[in-house]
């Protein structure tokens, strides 16, 4: 398509004028609020800045007291350390990363898939006991993971899926928050749309895939983020169900890097590098979906 440069230019001018008009309308309280919020968000950003800088600090800067925020002599040493560290052991760190990626992809897909399949009938099909069922799902939100880890262990053990990827994925696959969010979103989809689709000749599957799912994409994006976070940061399944070291994931390995050692001073550099590796995918996923994520939060009234 040909782009009309003059029109584009004009639009830019209009946008600037709109912005100026908005700026002119700002009153004193708003200025205070804007400055306050800006400072607050800068403060919120500090851990991220620290995380990024920390990963590139050489050893002498890492253990500096008082600690510095900004790295003086950036180095890749920590990352090489992290890679080298595991060459002396059985399992290279790349294996943990690989496991993590596999588990995260499978678990995220599984959580989103089952979550949406579960939410649709709860929202759009009235059946006896439906509310009770939804209530039960909500109650399951209240249990701390520690409470259910023993029954979980029994289940995983008797299913015979210890030391398999399924052993990672299956315990995570039910995501009550996801069901809740998706149900709230699907409730907003007008019934007339589904009825129109039915009259148009659509089957339940077609209605679900072509009408309902596209309309709840913001919620789907949000759940993708939540599911990703849960799966990517999850060390529990590695701790409990994986005796084979080759099946454990990165978060578990990160934990062993520092906390298993008595004084927690050694391998600080490798740990900092690992922390950044752990954090980056979350950031990327969030940046991709952030617009929709924020839309969901505005919609659902959940902070």
């Amino acid at each position, binding site marked *: 398509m040909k782009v009309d440069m003059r029109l584009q230019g004009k639009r830019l001018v209009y946008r600037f004028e709109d912005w100026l008009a908005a700026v002119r309308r700002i009153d004193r309280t708003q200025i205070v609020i804007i400055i306050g919020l800006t400072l607050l968000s800068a403060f919120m950003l500090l851990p991220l800045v620290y995380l990024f800088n920390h990963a590139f600090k050489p050893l002498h800067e890492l253990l500096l007291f008082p600690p510095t925020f900004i790295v003086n002599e950036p180095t890749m040493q920590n990352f090489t350390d992290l890679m080298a560290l595991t060459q002396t052991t059985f399992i290279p760190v790349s294996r943990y990363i690989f496991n993590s990626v596999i588990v995260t992809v499978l678990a995220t897909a599984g959580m989103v898939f089952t979550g949406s399949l579960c939410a649709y009938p709860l929202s759009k099909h009235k059946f006896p006991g439906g509310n009770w069922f939804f209530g039960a799902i909500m109650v399951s939100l209240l249990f701390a993971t520690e409470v259910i880890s023993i029954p979980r262990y029994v289940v995983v053990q008797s299913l015979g899926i210890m030391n398999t990827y399924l052993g990672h994925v299956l315990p995570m696959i039910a995501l009550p928050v996801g069901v809740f969010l998706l149900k709230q979103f699907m409730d907003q989809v007008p019934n*007339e749309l589904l009825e129109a689709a*039915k*009259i*148009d000749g659509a089957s339940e599957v077609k209605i679900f895939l072509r009408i309902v799912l596209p309309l709840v994409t913001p919620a789907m994006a949000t759940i993708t983020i939540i599911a990703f976070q849960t799966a990517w940061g999850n060390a529990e399944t590695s701790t409990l169900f994986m005796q084979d070291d080759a099946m454990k994931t990165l978060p578990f390995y990160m934990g062993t890097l520092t906390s298993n050692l008595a004084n927690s001073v050694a391998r600080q550099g490798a740990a900092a590098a690992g922390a950044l590796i752990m954090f980056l995918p979350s950031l990327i996923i969030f940046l991709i979906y952030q617009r929709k994520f924020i839309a969901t939060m505005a919609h659902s009234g959940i902070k």
Partner: protein
Amino acid sequence: MAKILFNHVYKRYGKYKEVAVNDFNLQVEDGEFLVFVGPSGCGKSTTLRMLAGLEDISGGEIYIGDTVVNDFSPKDRDISMVFQNYALYPNLSVYENIAFGLRLRKLPKHEIDLSVKRAARVLEIENFLERKPRELSGGQRQRVALGRAIVRKPQAFLYDEPLSNLDARLRVQMRSEIISLHKKMGVTSIYVTHDQVEAMTMGDRVVVMNKGVILQVDTPERLYNRPNNIFVANFIGNPPMNFIPGKLQEGSGGLEFHTNRFALLLTKQHAGQLRKQNLIDKTVILGIRPEHISFEENEIGGNPQSLISGVLEFGEFVGSDRYYHLKIGMESLLIARAHPKYHFNDGMKVTAAIDMEKALFYHKETENLLTD
């Protein structure tokens, strides 16, 4: 295209099995444009939704053509429906919205394209085919919804209050467009509305419903001139019909209708019919439309036994007419339609003549029509 038949159809709702539609019997002729009208909650939408297959039928049978469709799913009934809130798929373009049903039926691509474009041309939405529904105005959205309905060439069109979300001017315009569309396609149509003006102007026949029961099925003319009962008389027409309770008594010139304030002489025909039903000295309700009350001098001079005098409460000027609300010593005011040339001041004493030929008499308890 097909006949539609409702045979003793019932709908019961909820825990207590409240009856929403009660013994609904109706035959819709092939190619007819039938309107269901009634106040909200009267069961008109429920009936339509049962026909569409969106609600279960609690009792009776519904036929489309010669087939009982009670247990058919909506997609197998070969009908299409237009909803009040348009129900366009927001994630699909206008083109895809119209094509949705055809794609599900796995029609060849070129055929879909041809049908969609033809429907778009008829409805003058060719320029919006690539847009999303949210980029359209209310009227345009309703056209798309119509396009989605006509493109499938169904046995019947069902309209569920399709114009209620439009502004007044657009509603009038779309009303005539739907009618001309119906004339062109000749498909059996059932149209649900709570707006009596829509019902009167659009329907070949109109079904007036209240509390799940059919009160009258008739042409708009018959419905207006000879409403079967007080509810229909009150519901159809704006401003509504006047109702005056009074006693029937034999007078010197014939049967008279007496209130505490005035007496009106009945026509011979009415008198005969009422006498036959043994209603002498009983209370009945007289119904008279505002336009059958006149301020014309020759009529007021004509028959002194058809006059009502009252005090003018207020007048409403609506352009071609003027409506006067008169206090005649009854609970409710008497509304009379007059030519705008008559200009009375509020509080004036006026005399109006009632056209007793046009008067209707209703039973006090059953509220049914007593005269022809």
